[in-house]
């Protein structure tokens, strides 16, 4: 896989802007991405791949009419064709209303958090890294499945007013499930560099959980105190973000948090900020308009502070953009990209030790929104659910389905861990999260396994 140099990216952008000369204006977005992923199951590599793609998005205005097109052909013919395509689209449009002025310069035009060695990490080295995982699984009677991947992304945006912004990052990720006849254990780790991944330690942890999860016993659905490590918190935070932190839904009144800014909605232990500059986030420092992404407090000690904005929603709300525009036009409006949930004072072990009776949830599966008005979610536990009695893990429990409101869950946060980790939910995202202890978390049915 080959990472483009900044000069190569700029040459493509300048060549495209040249093609756009004479038009009212032009905005370009160039995305280059590569990933090499080894996917394993049953203690063998089942899929092993290397992928690379590029996307050039062109937005033009010609005689007041908006045209958009995109291509993955970056040669001269491809660039010429995509500009022509955008012009053909524009020719069919009515003159655009309320076009925003282009941003001419960006105060934070660059972030480079790409580790070149990680981008170039080869399949042989990754196979060597997985050998110990498979040996451990075989020795302990489990089947290991999972992924070991290295990926990188480059983003450059430019416009005819002189804006030039660059961002590039890398990510190495290892995730594994150890499976037995009646038990499984899961772990995940990710870092900017593959050197930040301890594959053997993560494999040992998945193995430990799977061992401990053998012979699970049924538990009664109902309200339980739960200990959620960061990976389990991820699914809840992902939906809080999606339902509540975008300004467009807030202004339309369709958000469950609409009209509630300034109200204490959650526990004083619960605070959320969007912060692209957090060292674990490696976030994009500018938005798709070229504005600097601000650090935005969204929930402070349980009080909902408001949403992020782009220039459109900011004008409607009588405020200023927080630098959270998505590529325009889009049906979603602005959204946070790097949520950070504030840490607390405890360790995960201390949360368990301080629980008389509860459930320890390794992570959640296939969570979804049942009623957006109540922020009511439903989902499953998986890969290790354990009963806590008198401050200790007592025995494994069969998986259960939860049905719980985020208003209720984040109001009932009793303690938060001081350690944070980066995790995504089942449907994606990447959030910096602590672990949590939450009381009266509602489980509503059993899985039977």
């Amino acid at each position, binding site marked *: 896989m080959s990472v483009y140099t900044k000069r190569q990216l700029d040459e493509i952008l300048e060549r495209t802007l040249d093609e756009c000369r004479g038009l009212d204006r032009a905005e370009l977005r160039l995305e280059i991405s590569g990933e090499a992923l080894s996917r394993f199951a049953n203690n063998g590599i089942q899929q092993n791949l290397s*992928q690379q*793609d590029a996307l050039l998005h062109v937005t033009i205005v010609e005689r007041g009419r908006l045209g958009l097109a*995109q291509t993955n052909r970056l040669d001269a013919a491809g660039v010429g064709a995509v500009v022509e395509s955008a012009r053909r689209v524009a020719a069919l449009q009515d003159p655009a209303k309320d076009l925003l002025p282009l941003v001419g310069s960006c105060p934070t035009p660059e972030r480079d958090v790409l580790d070149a060695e990680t981008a170039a990490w080869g399949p*042989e080295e990754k196979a060597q890294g997985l050998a110990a995982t498979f040996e451990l699984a075989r020795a302990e009677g489990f089947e290991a499945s999972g992924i070991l*991947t290295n990926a990188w992304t480059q983003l450059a945006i430019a416009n005819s007013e002189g804006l030039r912004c660059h961002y590039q990052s890398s990510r190495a990720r290892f995730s594994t499930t150890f499976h037995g006849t009646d038990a499984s254990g899961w772990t995940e780790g990710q870092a900017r560099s593959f050197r930040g991944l301890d594959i053997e330690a993560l494999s040992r942890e998945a193995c430990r959980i799977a061992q401990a999860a053998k012979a699970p016993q049924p538990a009664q659905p109902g309200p339980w105190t739960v200990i959620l490590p960061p990976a389990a918190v991820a699914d809840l935070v992902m939906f809080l973000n999606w339902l509540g932190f975008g300004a467009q839904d807030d202004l339309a009144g369709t958000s469950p948090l609409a009209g509630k800014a300034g109200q204490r909605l959650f526990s004083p232990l619960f605070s959320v900020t969007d912060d692209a500059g957090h060292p674990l986030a490696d976030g994009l420092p500018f938005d798709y308009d070229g504005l600097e992404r601000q650090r935005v407090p969204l929930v402070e000690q349980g009080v909902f502070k408001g949403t992020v904005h782009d220039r459109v929603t900011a004008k409607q709300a009588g405020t200023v953009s927080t630098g959270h525009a998505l590529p325009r036009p889009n049906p979603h409006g602005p959204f946070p990209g790097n949520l950070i949930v504030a840490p607390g004072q405890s360790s995960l072990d201390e949360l368990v030790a301080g629980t008389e009776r509860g459930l320890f949830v390794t992570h959640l599966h296939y969570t*979804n929104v049942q009623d957006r008005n109540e922020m009511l979610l439903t989902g499953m536990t998986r890969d290790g659910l354990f009963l806590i009695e008198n401050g200790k893990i007592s025995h494994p429990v069969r998986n259960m389905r939860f049905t719980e409101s985020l208003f209720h869950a984040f109001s009932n946060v009793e303690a938060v861990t001081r350690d944070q980790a980066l995790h995504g939910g089942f449907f994606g995202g990447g959030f910096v999260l602590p672990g949590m202890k939450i009381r009266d978390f509602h489980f*509503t049915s059993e899985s039977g396994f």
Partner: protein
Amino acid sequence: MKDMLNLALDAAKSAGADYADIRIVNTRRQGVQTRNGELAGLMDSEDLGFGVRVLAGGAWGFASSNRLEPVELRSKAVEAVRIARASATLNRDSVQLAPEPAWQDFWQTPIQLDPFTISLQEKLGLLLACDRVLRADPRIKEAAASMSFLREHQYYASSEGARIEQILIRSGAGYTATAVENGEAQERSYPMSHGGQYMGLGWELILALDLVGNAERVREEAIALLSAPQCPSGTFDLILKPQQLVLQIHESVGHASELDRVLGYEANYAGTSFATTDKLGSFRYGSPIVNLIADGTVPGGLATQGYDDDGVRQQRWPIVQAGILKGYMTNRELAQRIGEERSRGCNRAEGWFHLPITRINNLSLMPGTHSWEQLVGEVEDGVIMDANKCWSIDQQRLNFQFGCEIGWRVKQGKVTGLVKNPTYQSMTPVFWGACDAICGPEEWKLVGVANCGKGQPGQTAEMSHGSSPARFRGIQLGV
């Protein structure tokens, strides 16, 4: 094109591949979205690239690139072999492919009107006409409408001699109205939720949907839900219409019957399946009237095509027959693991970029004999539900809890009114075992799933599920 296909295959073989195939895919996409009377999305894209897949040392390697140039074709073929050899260092089992004739063929989605010949103005005008009707009442705070079209031109060649060219065309459209009052929001969609109805058809699908003609009803239903009573909780009879059955079939039968899941290939992410191979031919999946047929040839199906990405010709076969588990979604790698001599043709990739993986084919619940009037008339105390809103199912596809946009209360055989926020929860074989009546073929509809996500890295596939309204006795509603 032939030269490029051969160049990559030759390079792979020279590098030591025992088997190689290449897919060159050129995709055109066009999409238009509106929100509250304004353009909210406009996409016109072209995407070209190739993926080379090889077997070397009994293991897979795959490399793809957007640069369709001779140097890159050779380079990626060699890289795929290098990756396969790395895989082989750890693998104890060698991949064996089920035999398939080396087809040389051309196949194209049959359409009446090419959607790419319809102007963007006409497309945008149709969506805005829907928007105006939807927002005629001020309680509708958000009206979102969209349509999109895809033309995928595929060239497939394998080292076994297959040469297949296909042009797949898919079209779809839909809208959602969200009514808000007193801090509560309720939404209704047409022709279905999750973006609308998508099929392997052309512009004729959009015309047949009568989008504008249905907008007033959708608006009024969204508003009526604001004041409708909550769906009751407890054990009731449940009637599902095709817009919800599509999701029920997809999640509780479709994914559960993907053989890669069954064999543990998805264990770390999407999960496994309770429908293990020891159950094949004997496990009671549903009641004796439940027949679910996979069919890669059904007209208009989103998965309907001539051949899959293994070069296997499309087929029709039972997954559940008279309530018994009878088959799986298979590919050439896995078919022999259940003693089948030939793949069922379910290996598909999203574009050129991704590696083909086992996907749900078109999968449909076969019609029964009831009329709609009989289906409802035989319910003493129940609820009808339609249009999926919430879906969640466990990693073995057993415990599910689904919610719909709209419900109708049924008492003593009569529909008595709307209910809002309807949900139901059950276990897959218990639920299908409770199916005691299915409407006849006159009520049967094929509904598309245009956004089925699977795999790591994630990729999207499309498929369709047909059904007639069906009744399920004694189901847990609400929570």
